[in-house]
């Protein structure tokens, strides 16, 4: 079962320069909430930003990761 810390590390490893804050939303290990800040998001639509993060997890989203709620932003 994926843990919040593991999800954070995978996001940060997959998107260069990204910093992620991930919390287990329900404590059940399958609903997570992530705020991701990355320079890679600059110039991309919100849809594209979210897709970049979802792509890291592929079929795990909707499977072992029942939900990954996302907030994406560019660095200030």
């Amino acid at each position, binding site marked *: 079962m994926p843990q919040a810390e593991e999800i954070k590390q995978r996001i940060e490893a997959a998107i260069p320069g990204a910093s992620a804050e991930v919390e287990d939303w329900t404590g059940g290990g399958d609903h997570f909430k992530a705020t991701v800040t990355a320079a890679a998001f600059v110039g991309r639509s*919100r849809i594209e930003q979210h897709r970049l993060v979802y792509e890291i997890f592929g079929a795990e989203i909707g499977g072992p990761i029942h939900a990954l709620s996302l*907030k994406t932003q560019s660095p200030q």
Partner: protein
Amino acid sequence: MSENEQNQIRDAIGQAINENEVILFMKGTPDAPACGFSARTVAALQSLQAPFAAVDVLPDPRIREELSAISQWPTIPQLFVKGELVGGCDIVMEMYESGELAQTLGVAVASP
């Protein structure tokens, strides 16, 4: 599943997206949402009094598979406006709070 059946489902979804200006693919129905994310998205649309079509993806898992193949979006709900994917629950809620959703839907925002 035969390839033909798969194509039929995909075509039907594509047609629904093109024929309805605002369409929400969700778990459950607007009156009885079966998931908190779908419920929140429906509530945002309803509070803007925006008319929308809704498709329940739960009766047949193939609806969800084909929808995600079309939209390249892994989760439910998915909101489409004028044939374009607007987003899932997170994006819709963010846009609702910023007033962007009302703009996208072309509805007037009632003053508080």
